[in-house]
C-alpha cells in the first residue's frame, strides 16, 4: 500500500511538473502574441482583445472554434498511433482529403440505405484512407523503404488526383463552387450550438480518443504496438510479429485521418469542396507532436491550436493584422514543445 501511495505521489509530481512546463510555454507564446500585436498593429489593444476574447465572445465563434478542433483531434490521434509504433505518417493531407471524397461519393450513392448507408460511407472513406497509408507500411515491411518519405509522396499525388476528381468527373455543375454534389440531408449531423457549425462530430471525436486510449493500453495488440515502438529489437526477441506492426498502425492512422475527413463532410461541409482540407493533415501532425503522442493529450492540444486560429481569424476580421499571426504563434509553441528544452528545465537533472 505504502508503495502504491509513493507511486501515486510520484505520478502527481511529474504531472505538476509537466503542467508547469506547458504553462510556461503557453505564456511565452502568448507574450509573443502581445509583442507581435504591438509591432504590427496600429491598435494593439483592440487586436489583442479580439485575439484572446474573440473566440469566446459568443456561441457562434465559440462553437466554430470547437468545430475547428475536430479534424485536428482525428489527425492528432492518427499520427500519435503511428508514432507509438515507431512509424511516421506524413500523408495526412492526402488521407483526410481522399477519405472525405470517398465518403461524400458513397453517401450520395448509398442515400437509399438511410443510416446504414451513412455509416457504410464513413467506413469506406476510412478504409480507403487507411489503405493509402497502409501502402507505405507494406512497402516498409517488404523492402524497408522509409514510410516517412513514401507516405508524404503518395499523399501529394493523391491530393492532385482528388483535385481532379472534384473539379472534373464529380463536379456539381449546379453551383459555382469547385465542389461535388451535396450529401443527402438525412446524413448531415445535427448541430449542437446553432448558429455555429459545431456538430455531433465532436462527441464522436472524443469517443475516438477513448477508443484509441483503450486500444493502446488495454488490449494485447495495443501493448504489442507500443513495445514495437519502444524497442523493435526487444519486440521481435519477445516473439511479437513486428512486421504486422509496420502495417497495422499505418492503416489505423490513415483510417483515423479518413474518418476525420468524412465527419468534416457530414458535420460541416456537406460536399467535397476543392482544397477544403488543405493544412488539416499537417496541423494534425503538429497536434500529435505537442501531445507527445498521448491520446488523452490530443484533445487539449487540438483545442489550443483551434483557439489560436480562431483568435487570429477574429483579430483579422475586426482589426488590422493578418491571419499569419496564428501560424507564427503555433510554430513558436511547436518549437518550444518539440525541442523539449523547457520541458526538461522542470525535470531535475537525472541519470544520464
Amino acid at each position: 500500500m505504502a508503495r502504491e501511495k509513493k507511486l501515486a505521489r510520484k505520478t502527481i509530481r511529474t504531472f505538476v511538473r509537466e503542467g508547469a512546463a506547458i504553462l510556461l510555454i503557453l505564456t511565452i507564446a502568448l507574450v509573443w502574441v502581445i509583442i507581435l500585436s504591438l509591432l504590427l498593429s496600429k491598435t494593439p489593444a483592440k487586436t489583442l482583445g479580439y485575439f484572446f476574447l474573440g473566440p469566446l465572445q459568443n456561441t457562434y465563434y465559440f462553437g466554430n472554434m470547437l468545430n475547428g478542433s475536430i479534424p485536428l483531434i482525428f489527425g492528432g490521434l492518427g499520427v500519435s498511433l503511428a508514432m507509438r509504433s515507431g512509424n511516421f505518417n506524413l500523408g495526412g493531407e492526402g488521407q483526410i482529403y481522399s477519405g472525405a471524397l470517398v465518403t461524400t461519393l458513397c453517401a450520395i450513392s448509398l442515400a437509399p440505405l438511410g443510416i446504414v448507408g451513412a455509416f457504410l460511407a464513413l467506413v469506406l472513406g476510412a478504409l480507403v484512407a487507411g489503405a493509402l497509408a497502409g501502402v507505405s507500411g507494406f512497402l516498409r515491411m517488404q523492402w524497408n523503404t522509409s514510410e516517412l518519405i513514401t507516405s508524404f509522396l503518395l499523399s501529394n499525388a493523391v491530393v492532385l488526383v482528388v483535385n481532379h476528381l472534384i473539379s472534373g468527373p464529380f463536379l456539381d455543375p449546379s453551383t459555382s463552387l469547385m465542389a461535388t454534389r451535396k450529401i443527402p440531408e438525412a446524413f448531415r449531423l445535427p448541430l449542437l450550438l446553432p448558429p455555429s457549425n459545431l456538430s455531433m462530430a465532436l462527441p464522436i471525436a472524443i469517443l475516438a480518443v477513448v477508443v484509441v486510449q483503450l486500444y493502446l493500453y488495454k488490449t494485447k495488440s495495443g501493448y504489442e504496438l507500443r513495445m514495437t515502438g519502444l524497442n523493435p529489437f526487444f519486440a521481435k526477441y519477445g516473439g511479437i510479429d513486428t512486421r504486422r506492426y509496420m502495417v497495422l498502425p499505418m492503416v489505423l492512422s490513415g483510417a483515423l485521418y479518413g474518418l476525420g475527413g468524412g465527419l468534416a463532410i457530414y458535420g460541416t461541409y456537406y460536399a467535397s469542396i476543392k482544397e477544403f482540407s488543405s493544412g488539416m493533415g499537417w496541423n494534425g501532425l503538429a497536434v500529435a507532436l505537442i501531445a507527445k503522442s498521448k491520446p488523452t493529450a490530443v484533445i487539449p492540444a487540438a483545442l489550443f491550436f483551434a483557439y489560436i486560429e480562431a483568435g487570429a481569424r477574429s483579430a483579422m476580421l475586426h482589426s488590422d493584422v493578418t491571419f499569419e499571426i496564428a501560424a507564427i504563434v503555433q510554430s513558436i509553441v511547436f518549437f518550444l514543445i518539440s525541442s523539449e528544452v523547457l520541458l526538461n528545465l522542470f525535470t531535475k537533472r537525472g541519470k544520464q
Partner: protein
Amino acid sequence: MELAVEMLAITKTYPENNIRANEAVDLQLRKGEILCLAGENGAGKTTLMKVLYGMESQDSGTISIHGRKESITSPLVAKGLGIGMVHQHFMLVEEFTVAQNVLLGIEPVRFGISYDQKKANALVNEVIARHHFSLEAGTLVKDLTVGQKQQVEIVKMLYRDADILILDEPTAVLTEQEIEALFTTLRQLANHGKSLILITHKLHEIKAISDRVAVMRQGRMVGIYETTRMDERNISALMMGKTISLEIAHAEKPQKSLPVIVFDKVTVVRRGQERPLLNNLSFTAYSGEILGFAGVGGNGLGVVEAVLGGFIPTVGGRILHHESEITNMNTAQLRKQGLAYVPSDRLRIGSAAKATVEENIMVNASHMFTRQGFIDKKKSASFTERLLASYKAKATAQMPINTLSGGNIQKVILAREIEQYQDYIVFSEPTWGLDVASSQFVYEQMAELRDKGAAVILISSNLDEILTVADRIIVLYHGYRVASFAGKEARNLSKEEIGEYMLGIRRQGTLHG
C-alpha cells in the same frame, strides 16, 4: 601523502525513486595510485563516480581536488580540473577516425576553417606512441576491436591532460589478453603520476591491479584497504556482508539424456564477406546438462546466439528441435517451439528501457492474460509481483525498467525467460557486469533448470564461468568448432589449456560428439 581526490560525506538521493544511492560516503584517492572501487550492483559505486565527474550533483558533502575545494557542476568542469572518465558504454563516433574522435571539439584547424588531418594524426600518434598503445590515428573506429576502442577512450582523456582517470568496469567486454594489456597500460600511467579509480567487482582483477581497494555496500563506504593485506575471500565478504563461494554442483550423471537441440553442419555467412561466421558447426544439446560455448569475442559465440535466437539466417545445414526442423524460423516461431533465451545485450534486445517492469515481463507471456484481445491487468500485475518476489528483484511492477540496477534488470529477464521455458534455454553472457551475489544467483538458476531436465546452452566469453558451470564445453575459433570437452575432462580443464584452443594455438583432431 598527497591526495588527488578527497570526497567527504557525499550523500545523493535520486528523487525519481527515492533511492539513497550514497550516504555520507568518504573517499580518498592518493596521487599515483590505482584504487579499485568495489561493491555489488546497486552499492552506489557508479553514482559516486558520476558525482565526482559532475554528471550528478550531490545533496551534501564536499569534494577537494589536489587539496582545493571544488564545486563540480558538470563534466566540463571536471575535465577542466583534469578528471577524465571512461564509461562502460563507449562514447565514440564509429564513422570517425581515431584522431577525429580524440580531437572532437578541439580539432586543429588550417586557414581558420578546414580540419587539418595531417596535424591531427601527428598529434594523436604522438600520444599513442608515448603510452605504447597499439593504435593508428588514421583508422576508422568501427574497424577497431573492443579493446582498441577502449584505448581510444583512454587516449582521449590523456590528450586532454587528465591526471585523475575514472574507468567504469573497464574489463567487462575485454578478452583475457586485452585485459592484460590494459593492466600494463594502467600500471604505466600510475607510474607516470596519474591517479586512477577503477570500478569493478571482479575479485581477481582487484588483486592483480590495485594498490588499494575501496569497498561499498548499500550506499555506504565500508572501508578502504591496502590490497596486499586482503585476499579475494575477505574482499568478497566485505562486499556481501557474508562469505560465499562461487560454486555449483556439476551434474553427477545426467538422469536420462535426450537430444533436444541438434545443429547439423550449420554454416552462416555474412553477405559480402568471404570467411563464414560459422563453419559446418555440428553439436547436440542434451536434456539435463549445461552445454558451454567458449571462445574469444568475434569467433562465433555471438553468431551461435543469434542463430539460436532466430535473428540471423543460416545458409547451410539443419537445426532440429527434437525431431522437428526449426532451421531459419524467426524468433516468434521459435518461441512457440519452446525457445527461452537470456540475451547478451540486455538493454538493446532483452528489455525496452522506457517500458515498465510489468510490460517487460509479459512480452513472451501476454497471451496468458489476454481474453478476447483485452489484457487482464489484475492477472498480469499479480503475475509480475509473484515473479519479482520469487527472484528477489528490487523493483515494483510499474517502475520503468531503466530505473533498475543492472543486476535487477537481469533478474527480471531471468524470471521472464525461466518462467516460460519448456525444454531448452539459452543463456548468453548471463553475468556480464553483475556482482558476485547476482552471478551466484544466475548460476543456481541454471543448475536448477539443468536438474529439472532442461537442455541449458551457455554462451560465454568468461572462462571462469564456463569452467565453473558447464558440464560439457565446446570451443569456437574463427567460426569452427576446434575442441570439445566432456565429463571429467571438462572438470579438470585448466584455464591455460582451454585458452590455447580459444586462441587457435591448438585444435583437436576429431571434431565429433
